[in-house]
């Protein structure tokens, strides 16, 4: 099962988005693990990561991700700010599915 993490400063504002995404994923029978993390937790996250999505407010961490994850299979991207703000679980889930080369819903 693919492992996706959403990162923001304290892991709080993304957690609401993650719970929406999980609900939609479950409704559509999509087997995917999604978690919200604080940026400081990412470093010590032990599971294998397939995709890291950054909240738009921490998009400046993109360079650090490129540095830290260059030798892994992890992909990374920034969440669109309007979809992030409106907590659009479906749109962000579709972004995840696209990035993981899966069929969108």
């Amino acid at each position, binding site marked *: 099962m693919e492992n996706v993490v959403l990162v923001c400063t304290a892991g709080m504002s993304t957690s609401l988005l993650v719970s929406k995404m999980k609900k939609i994923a479950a409704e559509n029978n999509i087997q995917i693990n999604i978690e919200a993390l604080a940026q400081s937790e990412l470093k010590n996250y032990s599971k294998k990561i397939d995709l890291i999505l950054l909240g738009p*407010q921490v998009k400046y961490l993109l360079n650090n991700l490129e540095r830290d994850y260059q030798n892994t299979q992890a992909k990374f991207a920034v969440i669109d700010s309007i979809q*992030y*703000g*409106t907590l659009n679980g479906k749109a962000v889930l579709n972004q995840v599915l696209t990035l993981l080369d899966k069929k969108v819903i």
Partner: protein
Amino acid sequence: MLNKFMRLMENKFVPVASKLGSQRHLIAIRDAFISIMPLAIIGSLAILINNFPIRAYQNFMAFLFGPEWTSFSNYIYSGTFAIMSLLIVFSISYNLADSYDTDPLLAALISFSAFIITIIQSGKDGLTIPFQWLDASGLLVAILVAILATEIYVKMMNIIKLKKQKEEGTMSPILNRYFFALIPTIMIFLIFSLMRIVFASFGIENIIEEIYRLIQLPLMGLANNLGTALVIVFIGHFFWFLGLHGTNILEPVIQALYLPALQENIQAVNNNLAVPNIFTKPFFDSFVYMGGSGTTISLLIVIYLFSNSKRKRDLMKLSSTQSVFNINEPILYGLPIVMSPIYLIPFIFTPLILTLSSYFAILTGLVPKTIAMVPWGTPPIISGFLITGSITGSLLQIFNIFIGILIYFPFVKIAERIKE
């Protein structure tokens, strides 16, 4: 014209803010302060329990636990806020080494030792650690020592790692790990003890005291000035306006300047002295950033009371729970405030004006100075009471929210008229 301005901002300021926000040492400092936050909060609440300004409460506690009842909280304070520099040395070094993928625990232990080497004093009973410098007054030295020791450690370990790869060792890995760390450890201890001797030859025995007097004190003086506070609030919100987490980017600076200010206040309360500082970390968190950056709790109330836009009302419902805990990303990105020229004005001016109103409320003595730390997510009105120990703290928050409503109101209306 407006688009040109926005593009200029994107191209000129976003890269600078991004650099600041992703800078390795600043991240290590910020995360270090975040990790010691539980201890700082407990320590400050302990002092608040001791000094709650109600006579009946004081008498009751003394009756219940005896006249020495306050020593209980004093112990907690001694183990938390009073040794903040020790905690910070350890946690900065840990975070920094971790960011380099170098053994963080060893780095933190070495930095801890290096800090002790830097501050140890000879007293009449032999060597002593000067306890009064372990609180926030030793913070600058703690930050410098942690970064210096960790950098030396990481650089040397990297050289050793390269050498080691050429001649694969036969020792067990755990032995390997500590054996090879010996060389950098010795080097670091040599450097730091030599530094002591060099400083001593210039007549400086107490390095912490000198650096505090020459650098940290002037810096804190500068920080506790209305102009500086306004500039910090402005920069934080300007970054947010560009879509970047301004308060998070500035966090290392804010923590390093305004947490010591709070600690001075707490200590003054505990020693029955006049409380010195108006601007502290909780001053901004609780009086200005209510509902999150931009005091968006006022904006939500405006939308709740006066807006007919379905989209705005949906967004308000969606984010109201989070807003109570001062989290407002949905409003910032969803309304959006970010990069919106209409909301730029109230988003930046509300917090600036509330910084002014809170400053004058405290300056004139209407509201007492802040004397306790609460988590930044503590809901407004509750937090105002907790950080000042006075109901006037909550009243100031209500007043500020009201001012915010007045500022946001016309702009919400303008935004709606433009949409139509």
